[in-house]
């Protein structure tokens, strides 16, 4: 039985946790109170950029003949799809811009260019993942059913193949989460009614059909003789977007520094306890501004988990304050460059493929 390093949660007293909650609340409140026109302009700019990129990509693919222009079009389309997913969709659906009261940029109305419907994703992500972050058996984002990343998960021979199907999962990630998020297995054990599952399935089928029709039927069809090229460009954009999103999602909670928790952790958990659990379960990625934009600022996974509904472009400025709180209470603050975190996650996946 591998030994677990003692969690700081065992050391902190209730008073410590309350003090941490007060300090972190103050950081979040200060940003929320300071939101204004420049912040509204930021999200409008990102949305305009995303739409401009997407339109340019489609036009480039439509009008040009050369192979390199097609590659350029695919690259622009990939960038546009990543921005739609991470920099806009994820954050808007967290309610980060609800304070603007703009009905067009609101968590209740936003729909993204991915197969999962906004409604089902908001339930599985905003609710399940952000409430039960890194609780083994409760947080479905960790993929505990498909991939073994923790010694407490019982081993099964199928996990020997997880390095292989782990890669496959990355390539079809958007479809995997769309289906996974509907939690159809919940019908079997009675946590979800059949009629609810049916209506979710119908909504998913409707959305998926439109998504598939757009990228693999209609755009190729209007491209005429260049149909095959357009189809390939669309396919590669979707696959690359999936792989990138998968990378960012896995890097946020799976590197070796990230801690996981048993279900008992939830019993009587205080606000401070919740904050510390978010802190211990998340890892940041180091990088420059364009990198942060392309991750939707999920490179600031720690700040995002502490303040999921605070406008994401403010995370860089509050990160030093969060780090200072961590130092005061001798809490780890995990952060590293993408390459290092990648190796760390890969090591885990390889290690736990074996018993």
């Amino acid at each position, binding site marked *: 039985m591998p030994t677990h390093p003692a969690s700081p949660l065992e050391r902190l007293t209730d008073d410590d946790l309350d003090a941490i909650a007060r300090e972190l609340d103050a950081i979040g*409140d200060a940003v*929320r109170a300071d*939101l*204004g*026109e*420049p*912040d*509204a*302009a930021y999200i409008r700019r990102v949305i*305009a950029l995303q*739409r*401009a990129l997407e*339109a340019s990509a*489609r036009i480039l693919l439509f009008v040009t003949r050369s192979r390199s222009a097609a590659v350029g079009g695919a690259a622009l389309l990939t960038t546009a799809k990543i921005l739609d997913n991470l920099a806009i969709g994820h954050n808007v659906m*967290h*309610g980060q811009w*609800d*304070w*603007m*009261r*703009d*009905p*067009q940029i*609101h*968590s*209740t109305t936003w*729909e*993204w*260019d991915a197969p999962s419907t906004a409604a089902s994703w*908001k*339930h599985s992500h*905003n*609710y399940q993942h*952000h*409430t039960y972050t890194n609780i083994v058996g409760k947080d479905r984002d960790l993929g505990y059913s498909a991939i073994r990343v923790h010694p407490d998960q019982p081993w099964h021979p199928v996990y020997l193949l997880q390095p292989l199907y782990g890669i496959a999962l990355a390539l079809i990630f958007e479809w995997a989460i769309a289906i996974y998020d509907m939690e159809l297995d919940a019908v079997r054990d009675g946590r979800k009614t059949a009629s609810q599952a049916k209506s979710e399935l119908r909504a998913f089928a409707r*959305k998926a059909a*439109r*998504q598939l*029709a*757009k990228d693999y039927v*209609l*755009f190729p069809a*209007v491209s005429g003789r260049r149909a095959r090229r357009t189809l390939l460009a669309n396919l590669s954009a979707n696959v690359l977007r999936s792989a990138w999103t998968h990378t960012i999602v896995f890097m946020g909670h799976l590197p070796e520094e990230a801690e996981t928790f048993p279900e008992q952790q939830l019993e009587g958990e205080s*606000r401070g306890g*919740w904050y510390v659990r978010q802190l211990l379960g998340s890892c940041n990625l180091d990088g420059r501004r364009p990198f942060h934009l392309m991750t939707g600022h999920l490179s600031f996974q720690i700040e995002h988990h502490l303040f*999921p*509904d605070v406008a994401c472009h403010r995370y860089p400025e509050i990160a030093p304050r969060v780090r200072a709180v961590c130092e005061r209470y001798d809490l780890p603050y995990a952060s590293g460059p993408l390459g290092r975190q990648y190796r760390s996650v890969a090591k885990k996946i390889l290690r736990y493929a074996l018993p």
Partner: protein
Amino acid sequence: MRRIAHRGWPQRRLLDVASLLTTPLAPDDFLGLVNPLWSNRQLAGRVVDVRQETSDSATIVIRPGAGWRGHRAGQHVTLGIAVDGVRHQRSYSLTSPPRGVDGHISIAVKAVRDGLVSTHLVRRTAPGSIVFLGQAAGGFVLPEPPPERLLFVTAGSGVTPVMGMLRTLARSGALHDAVLVHVDRQPSSVMFAGELRRHAGRRTLRLHEHHTAQDGRPSAAEILQRVPDWTERETWACGPSALLDDLQTRFDEAGVAARLRVERFHPAVAPGAHDAEGGTVTFTRSGVTVDVDGTTTLLAAGEAAGALLPSGCRAGICRTCVGSLRAGLVRDVRTGQVSGGAGDVIQTCVSVAAGAVAIDL
């Protein structure tokens, strides 16, 4: 791009087909980026002129975008504008005749003390600004054709819908036997004073101004005294509720209640200025009404009363519990801040009622 501004069915059909290529967005989401006025989904307008009316009021001339369906004199429009990044909506009477010059519409705004939106519109709005518009609404309108003998009673900015009516009448040459009794603080605070006095000078309008700074608040009886034949006139009145109630009583007593139409201004309550704790909460979709105190969240109260409400984390994190307010104000238990108003979206798990609340859940 006038053609886009008046989309018929071929354009609409084209947009439907195009939406298959822009899914999950609409073609409007791309068109609106090039020019907000092209968007059909979000009716917008561009401010083309801001004309000072008095020291604290201004007429704002707006070119409405595609999808504006026109209005009738006396109607009002909901206008949305971002102040410090936050969209606020208010209703303003339209002061322009229907189908005005260049298709422009206008509203007139009086800067209310502590009025966030009205002050912004009067003092800080420049030509070129984009505003968001609802469709014209309201039944405070002139019939078609207009009656021969008219009486208007207005107070303060209550003159704005009537100005729209007078301009419409004047344009069609139908303004000849109208009386306007207008109540205002002093001569300099009267909106459209020049225009009104010009009409009076040309005898197309009989104008009685009543200045409260000098003569105090007039009763309905005092106002009607100036118009001996008031029982024979079709009357439109707009102003503070007390005055309108008083007028209604007089018309009832004279047995001519049907001749009076009133428009009430609901003053917007400034957030923070409200100290009501708790109230009656109506969940309109569930059909549940419940009295709550100032500490029970709307979610808890609704559930206890049997409403089936969406919810998740109950700590204000996951936003599963959001619903759109129909009316009322709520207090956020985390910040103590009071906010709300029709159309505002709130989180029921961290909101308590600040007075009566209706929510679309």
